[in-house]
């Protein structure tokens, strides 16, 4: 059975938008092709999740955003996130467009590019064209196709060869207008032997139904190192579908840190393609589900290169009647000798109505490899609660210690202190404490 994709925009309108945005011809064509694909493709198939029943059609339409002239004009919903960032490298997307861009001059001087993706397509067309939609392919399913047709705002980060950046570059992406489409695309290209940390936050401030259809593409050059941290804290009425992909060349490293702190239905897929020999990937996902959220989190590692280690960890706490499906897929291709793929998925359920399902999958086509997985789904252990209470700690505090303790081994490994503290606060908020 084919379900017709409802297109939120027609080809004519899409062309107009591209033209009025001053986009190069190749980009307009790319959008139109993706739109045509979207009409033919179906929704992605998610393990044990009926995404067709989710609210995934609330695209709204493109609305030009009003540029900020100073950081202190930013909406209050993101004030805390951008506090003291006047001198940092920061991009703010507000609904359909980027409204603030700053790149620290010392980075600009080294050739770093950090701008919204539309501007990048105009000013660095060759570079953008070489990478755009090469990791998340528009042909994968209708959501990816619609993303490629409709993306707006977004971030382009290019780090030249041998440039090592110590301070994180940041982006904040805010949706607060239900009628405006919110389809940011993040494209990171780290050239040979470069090193960079990028951190972004997705925030919503509205009560109407909405959708975030996001894609992240990271290209890690030979010997380069990219640390990509992302925190999603979208509200109850915003559905979040995000695909993240990294393609890693010889001896390159990708490190994912993902905080899934949304209040609405969320499907996310974070995948590392270890293309080069000696490339490696480390992914950490922390999630808290509450209310009646439906959640589907996937981490993936695909090994092509030899001597490629990958490790992925998802830890999720589910309260109330949140329902989570957690998938880990390690795929080792023939020829990826001495690959090592490890994965762990753990779910802690705090109420009888909460549901957690962990699905570790190892697909191995090469003999000379090591791989392992561990998965567990459980409740707060009454024996542990008793032990803590026997020292005078109240039941509430005892459970709290155990729940934080469940996440702590992963949170404590997050190398960025600010992010660690922020996640801690969001976890507390989501746990209602």
């Amino acid at each position: 059975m084919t379900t017709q994709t409802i297109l939120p925009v027609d080809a004519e309108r899409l062309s107009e938008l591209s033209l009025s945005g001053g986009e190069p011809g190749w980009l307009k064509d790319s959008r139109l092709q993706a739109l045509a694909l979207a009409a033919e493709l179906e929704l992605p198939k998610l393990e044990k999740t009926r995404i067709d029943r989710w609210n995934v059609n609330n695209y709204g339409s493109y609305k030009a955003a009003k540029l900020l002239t100073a950081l202190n004009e930013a909406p209050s919903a993101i004030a805390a996130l951008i506090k003291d960032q006047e001198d940092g490298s920061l991009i703010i997307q507000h609904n359909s467009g980027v409204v603030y861009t700053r790149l620290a001059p010392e980075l600009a001087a080294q050739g770093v590019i950090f701008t919204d993706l539309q501007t990048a397509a105009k000013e660095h067309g060759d570079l953008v064209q070489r990478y755009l939609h090469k990791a998340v392919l528009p042909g994968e399913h209708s959501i990816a196709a619609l993303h490629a047709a409709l993306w707006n705002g977004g971030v382009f980060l290019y780090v030249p060869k041998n440039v090592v950046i110590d301070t994180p570059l940041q982006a904040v992406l805010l949706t607060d207008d239900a009628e405006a489409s919110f389809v940011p695309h993040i494209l990171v290209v780290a050239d040979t032997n470069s090193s960079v940390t990028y951190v972004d936050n997705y925030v919503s401030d509205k009560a109407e139904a909405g959708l975030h259809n996001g894609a992240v593409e990271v290209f890690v050059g030979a010997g380069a190192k990219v640390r990509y941290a992302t925190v999603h804290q979208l509200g109850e009425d915003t559905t979040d579908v995000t695909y993240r992909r990294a393609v890693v060349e010889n001896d390159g490293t990708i490190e994912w840190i993902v905080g899934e702190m949304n209040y609405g239905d969320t499907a996310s897929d974070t995948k590392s393609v270890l293309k080069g020999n000696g490339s490696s990937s480390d992914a950490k996902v922390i999630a808290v589900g509450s209310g009646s959220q439906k959640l589907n989190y996937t981490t993936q590692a695909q090994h092509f290169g030899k001597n490629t280690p990958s490790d992925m960890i998802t830890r999720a706490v589910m309260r109330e009647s949140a329902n989570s499906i957690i998938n880990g897929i390690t795929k080792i291709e023939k020829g990826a000798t001495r690959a090592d793929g490890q994965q762990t998925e753990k779910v802690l359920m705090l109420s009888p109505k909460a549901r957690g399902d962990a699905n570790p999958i190892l697909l191995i086509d090469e003999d000379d490899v090591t791989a392992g997985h561990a998965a567990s789904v459980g409740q707060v252990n009454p024996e542990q609660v008793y032990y803590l209470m026997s020292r005078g700690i109240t039941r509430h505090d005892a459970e709290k210690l155990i729940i934080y303790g469940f996440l702590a081994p992963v949170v404590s490994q997050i190398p960025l202190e600010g992010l660690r503290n922020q996640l801690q606060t969001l976890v507390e908020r989501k746990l209602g404490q």
Partner: protein
Amino acid sequence: MAADFVIEGLKANIEGKEILKGINLQMKGGEIHAIMGPNGTGKSTLASALMGHPKYEVTEGTAVLDGEDLLEMAVDERARAGLFLAMQYPSEIAGVTNSDFLRSAINSRREEGKEISLIRFIRQMEAKMKELEMNPEFLHRYLNEGFSGGEKKRNEILQMMMLDPKIVILDEIDSGLDIDALKIVAEGVNAMRSPERGFLVITHYQRLLNYIKPDYVHVMMQGRIVKSGGPELAERLEAEGYEWVKEELGIEDETVGQEV
């Protein structure tokens, strides 16, 4: 005020099976009572029932500490009322550091806004750890996770020292300890002896009682205290075993549930 602890007619079930069949025991601050007895006779059950382990259902009796019946209280209230149990098998809790745990335990005894300062807490903790010859790194380790048997026992004693309870129950604190550790732990306990505090020491071995000298020794069989005496009772048990007690009392099988 010297602690006054009176257990009367305590009966308890586990999964519907009666394990404690009426325990009577009186303790005062300053006293050390030892409980001995063969395996499976209800010693740990007594300790757990007093502390309020959720698996144990108290069906009859009272346990009154300074005028308050502990058995009416939740586990944490019993602890704050002054009861401390060093467990035979302490839980391991990943992700919760020893120091976060102990600080929460101390703060649970203080009013909001009057929490112990971090620096003071660390200082106290380090001092006590030194007495117990524990490596300071144990502060930052996850609670009991991967601790050796002996390290867990020391950690129980550390908690006792930090929490300053009125009635301390030590359930086989000597098991898993090497001879040096036994001395260290015993010194820790002895340092805590005071007219305000009573100890109930569950053990199989006289050796511990050489270090922690009891005033009274009780023998448990079939879920009851079947015999009580002074320190000489423990010595005789060490020398002769339990046969003579069983003979004296006409008991054939001493474990719980075997009585006719």
